[in-house]
């Protein structure tokens, strides 16, 4: 940030020489740079490649980029990568699915009735105060170390942001719209469909973005505990054999999955909230 502003000051100070009439001091960071977001990662990749090529980076500390590429090829050829990827994606998808349904349902009940709020909101806030991963010992005791425990852990992590943000969205619906619904005599059903759900949607989608991040985070944790499949297991196994290349493949996979799912949520957000942006573009 500081660097950007600094650069900008330099260019404005040279501007009067070009055109004295149109010069105006800009306080923003300036115009966006083409392919700006890719510059940082490319730089990192260059440093990594240079380090590996010159031997400054020990193979045992960090495998060379080309090793990672060939390892990826081998993992795909043997089918290990696809199988583990599928397992991981399944866990997150199930956990997200259950968590979203649970969080939304609780938020609706709690947002639409005072009794619901009295019963539900307290326990959820308490649950939020306890670091979700601290519940794992209990979950393992209750549910074992199989898929049920893994999906449950992700579900429990995911439903909290969904609940919090959807509930906030619900509570934030303009009371004037509620009044309008009364004057046009909306039925309770129509009220929920036409006013409550669309009104809470921005909050829900914000919660969704947090939920996706949380889902992957919890996946990493549950997959490193007593797993026999999944990306985390693949990485854990690689650790015992000192295969940094496989660990990096796993990291890249996690990163790509995180980026992809966040992008998907943002796409949905843009579509579902198109009514908001109509004046902006």
């Amino acid at each position, binding site marked *: 940030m500081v660097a950007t502003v600094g650069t900008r000051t330099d260019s404005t100070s040279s501007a009067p020489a070009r055109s004295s009439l149109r010069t105006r001091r800009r306080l923003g960071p300036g115009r966006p740079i083409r392919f700006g977001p890719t510059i940082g990662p490319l730089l990192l990749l260059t440093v990594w490649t240079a380090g590996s090529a010159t031997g400054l980076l020990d193979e045992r500390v960090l495998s060379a980029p080309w090793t990672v590429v060939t390892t990826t090829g081998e993992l795909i050829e043997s089918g290990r990568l696809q199988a583990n990827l599928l397992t991981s994606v399944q866990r997150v998808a199930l956990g997200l699915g259950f968590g979203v349904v649970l969080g939304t349902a609780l938020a609706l009940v709690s947002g639409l009735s005072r009794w619901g709020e009295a019963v539900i909101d307290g326990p959820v806030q308490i649950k939020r105060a306890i670091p979700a991963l601290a519940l794992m010992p209990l979950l393992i005791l209750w549910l074992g170390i199989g898929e049920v425990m893994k999906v449950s852990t992700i579900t429990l992590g995911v439903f909290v942001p969904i609940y919090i943000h959807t509930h906030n969205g619900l509570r934030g619906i303009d009371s004037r*719209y509620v009044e309008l619904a*009364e004057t046009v005599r909306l039925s309770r059903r129509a009220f929920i469909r036409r006013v409550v759900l669309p009104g809470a949607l921005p909050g829900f989608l914000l919660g969704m973005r947090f939920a996706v991040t949380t889902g992957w985070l919890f996946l990493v944790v549950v997959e490193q505990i007593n797993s026999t499949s999944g990306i985390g297991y693949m990485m854990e196994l690689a650790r015992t054999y000192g295969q940094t290349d496989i660990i990096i493949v796993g990291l890249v996979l996690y990163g790509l999955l995180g980026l992809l799912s966040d992008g998907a949520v943002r796409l949905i957000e843009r579509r579902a909230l*198109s009514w908001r942006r109509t004046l902006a573009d």
Partner: protein
Amino acid sequence: MATHPGGLTTVAPAVRIAELTRSYDDRTILDSLDLEIRAGEFVALLGQSGSGKSTLLRALAGLDGEVAGTGLIDVPGAVSVVFQDSRLLPWLRVHDNVILGLTGPGAAEQGRESLAEVGLAGRERAWPNQLSGGEQQRVALARSLVREPELLLADEPFGALDALTRIRMHALLRSLCDRHRPAVLLVTHDVDEAIVLADRVLVLDGGRIAAEQLIDVDTPRNSADPRFAEIRAHLLGALGVTGEPREPREPRERSRD
């Protein structure tokens, strides 16, 4: 009750309010107020800011459940409300806003007709925030009239519009009301607007109807008409705007300590 323009003397009132009292905390806003509006009659309600116009209108709309008060309110079954803000749901397209809450197979078509009536045919699929303020308020009018109300309540519906748009809206509202003939209670702070639109103008002051004025100016009503000016002067007087500043009249028995 005296003879009213249009010769409708013996029609049963569409709205009857008797001894209506409303208060916030210990402040009495409406104080044993009586009011009748005949079917199809256009009544404008003037009053200083804070005199309780909105309080009265909200009581008629049944939107004041939390406000303490007593009195008789007799209104028709079909009541529509237009607020100062258009109050369109931003996430519903214009057409869906108009038919909000309507059921039945004819609703969609009625919605289209209603939009055409306010001059917005073809804008059915627009989002509310793509419309200008005047257009949004026209959608709100369409939404209220598509329900064929017997009573239309409007709380400073043009208050947020520019003067030019407001004049156009006056003509539109008048023609819509002539066609649909609901009883109308229009709250406004604009004396000229009241005279241009209404059959009868009331002034709310001290918690009750302090003055009443039949508007017998020839149509189209022109503020240059001497009778128009006469009525305006009279109403401004009733509102306490006489050129010299005066203390606002408080609701009676407001403070007894």
